[in-house]
């Protein structure tokens, strides 16, 4: 199965990316799309914009590693991951994960798995503009825990 992984400054079209995975096929019974969107407030404070920095070369490779892991775990028929970089304002899409499979459970779980690892392992960093100040977003324990639950699940099985 070929996966599409792109890191780009430009906006993306969620519907078009989903359609690309299913066009001309009848074996796919489920497509899940996850879109991460820039919020207009963070911890109650209005957010003017966020800027995403990334490590070219490694970011693509790290996403590919987790897409490969997802393919080994679930019977996927298509995967697309697009992550934007640069400056974006509230309401703009940041990241897209599309997973396709014969049945919904694999598509749901694989999309969630890829996002959890993307947040904690892919080398991207967010900087927010609030008022006249800029600040680097700090990693959260909740995101670490979300990624860790896939590891625990393995150990229990």
């Amino acid at each position, binding site marked *: 199965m070929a996966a599409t992984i792109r890191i780009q400054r430009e906006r993306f079209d969620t519907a078009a990316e989903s359609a690309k995975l299913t066009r001309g096929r009848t074996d796919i019974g489920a497509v899940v799309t996850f879109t991460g969107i820039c919020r207009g407030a963070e911890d109650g404070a209005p957010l003017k914009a966020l800027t995403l920095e*990334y*490590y070219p070369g*490694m970011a693509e490779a790290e996403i590919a590693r987790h897409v490969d892991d997802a393919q080994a775990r679930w019977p996927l028929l298509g995967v697309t991951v697009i992550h934007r970089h640069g400056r974006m304002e509230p309401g703009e899409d940041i990241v897209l994960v599309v997973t396709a499979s014969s049945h919904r459970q694999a598509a749901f779980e694989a999309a969630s798995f890829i996002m959890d690892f993307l*947040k904690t392992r892919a080398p991207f*960093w*967010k900087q927010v503009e609030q008022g006249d100040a800029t600040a680097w*977003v*700090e*990693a959260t324990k909740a995101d670490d825990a979300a990624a860790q639950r896939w590891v625990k699940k393995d150990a229990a099985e």
Partner: protein
Amino acid sequence: MKILYFAWVRERVGKTDEDVDVPHGVTTVSDLVAWLAGRGEEYAYAFENPRVIRAALDRTHVKPETPLGGAREIAFFPPMTGG
């Protein structure tokens, strides 16, 4: 060896990347962090809390105790916040 810095590590060091000759005796990732921290105020500030610094050797995540080996590139950065 090429060293890359990202996010606030890059801001504190004041450069995106540099080529350095790693001295003998500096054999692991944490050795390199300790050596870099002694190179000047900006490095001391960037690496003041080594526990929050993440590293990638030839574009793969590594732990502080990982040997540098024959790696060509190492990157230092804070915990990731993408997605």
